[in-house]
């Protein structure tokens, strides 16, 4: 795909287009495979979701959904911090004021097992939300079409409902942003996403099978009876956030809240989601996780600098840190403070000035027409984190390819400095 030179990537243009064939799975180095799941792009050839293949969204549609998710994140933080004016502004952009969580349109999926006997369920992989839920029989109100058979609690010997008076039920307030309800002493959860998608159902306990050797009893999850929205053919969501109801928190006794993943380079290849620290490479470089006020479920990070083509951009750390920063597996395009994005775009365009530009693609305003080239050279981009950690972005993470005649810089700016 690319050969790295000093400060740029040389890319064969033909390799920008994704393959229609699923390639062999990725494996983490030194992996104890007992605790590892495959991560698959929802819309790629490795996905087994037929509904998704038949209705693959365009890149423009994916970017519109991504913008909805980002507005939902900003809206959630603003609401929790009491920034009423910001909420009014977002409400004007057709966002629901009551956004319990984020839009459920993440691009990556994993398969887990639930119940006894175990039933496999393909769930959307999301570090930006907390509770795990799946559609459940008898679908008292509504279920959308999914690839896997819908989970049936009555067919499982290890299923039990959670009572309204339990501490777990009370915890739903912080995990979903909504107060739980009560039906015949059974705790009822409700989670609404930024695009108005939602799931409502019984809060329950069940045996969770991550791999054949890694099984957890009494895993708390949502057994959805009324589920509507943009979940495609997935059976629900896997919540990997920081709340105590998230999967990493519920499995903390075994895995100590440690998990890792690798997102594949293209939709035609696979990545992994691994729990625990067995087999972690010593070459992993660590920075500090922080907490964003009002957004305690998010994984906060501190980005202090950026470079393009080996040269650091002249952006002060205070601008990059102004609104805080998070890392999110469900947001497609990295959003930068407006000033930082302007500096990145200026430097990138300057080093790409030999290529003809193309029309913008949704939120992406720096696009190129590579149709007359067999290879192109693009500047390397790096992010710098606290504790001296430099993360070079892979060539596949710098460009977002709609077609060879519309290849875009895969970054965007926030609307406001304070976002």
């Amino acid at each position: 795909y690319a050969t790295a030179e000093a400060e740029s990537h040389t890319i064969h243009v033909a390799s920008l287009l994704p393959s229609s064939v699923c390639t062999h799975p990725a494996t983490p180095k030194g992996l104890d495979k007992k605790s590892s799941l495959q991560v698959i792009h929802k819309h790629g050839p490795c996905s087994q979701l037929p509904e998704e293949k038949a209705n693959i969204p365009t890149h423009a549609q994916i970017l519109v959904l991504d913008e909805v998710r980002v507005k939902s994140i900003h809206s959630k933080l603003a609401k929790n911090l009491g920034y009423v004016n910001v909420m009014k502004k977002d409400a004007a952009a057709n966002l629901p004021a009551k956004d319990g969580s984020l839009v459920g349109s993440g691009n990556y999926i994993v398969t887990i097992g639930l119940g006894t006997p175990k039933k496999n369920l393909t769930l959307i992989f999301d570090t930006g939300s907390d509770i795990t839920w799946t559609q459940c029989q008898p679908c008292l109100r509504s279920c959308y079409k999914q690839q896997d058979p819908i989970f049936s609690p009555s067919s499982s010997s290890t299923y039990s409902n959670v009572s309204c008076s339990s501490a777990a039920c009370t915890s739903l307030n912080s995990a979903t942003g909504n107060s739980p309800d009560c039906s015949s002493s059974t705790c009822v959860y409700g989670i609404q996403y930024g695009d108005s998608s939602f799931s409502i159902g019984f809060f329950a306990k069940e045996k969770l099978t991550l791999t054949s050797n890694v099984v957890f009893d009494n895993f708390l999850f949502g057994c959805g009876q009324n589920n509507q929205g943009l979940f495609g053919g997935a059976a629900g969501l896997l919540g990997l956030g920081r709340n105590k109801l998230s999967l990493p928190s519920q499995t903390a006794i075994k895995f100590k809240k440690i998990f890792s993943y690798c997102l594949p380079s293209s939709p035609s290849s696979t990545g992994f989601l691994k729990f625990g620290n067995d087999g972690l490479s010593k070459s992993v470089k660590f920075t500090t996780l922080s907490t964003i006020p009002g957004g305690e479920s998010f994984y906060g990070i501190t980005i202090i600098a950026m470079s393009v083509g080996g040269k650091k951009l002249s952006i002060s750390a205070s601008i990059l840190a102004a609104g805080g920063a998070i890392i999110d597996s469900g947001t497609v395009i990295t959003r930068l403070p407006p000033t930082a994005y302007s500096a990145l775009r200026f430097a990138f365009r300057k080093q790409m000035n030999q290529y003809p530009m193309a029309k913008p693609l949704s939120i992406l305003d720096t696009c190129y027409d590579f149709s007359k080239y067999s290879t192109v050279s693009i500047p390397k981009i790096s992010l710098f984190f606290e504790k001296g950690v430099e993360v070079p972005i892979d060539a596949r993470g710098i460009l977002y390819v709609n077609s060879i005649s519309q290849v875009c810089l895969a970054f965007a700016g926030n609307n406001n400095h304070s976002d």
Partner: protein
Amino acid sequence: VLIYGNTQQKTLEVVYDGTRRMLGFRTGGCT
């Protein structure tokens, strides 16, 4: 907030250590 999205995370191994409150990165993590 600045949001570090999944396109830019491709091929990195991203490690979450909630107990030590650390986040790790390793390039070439999918191979």
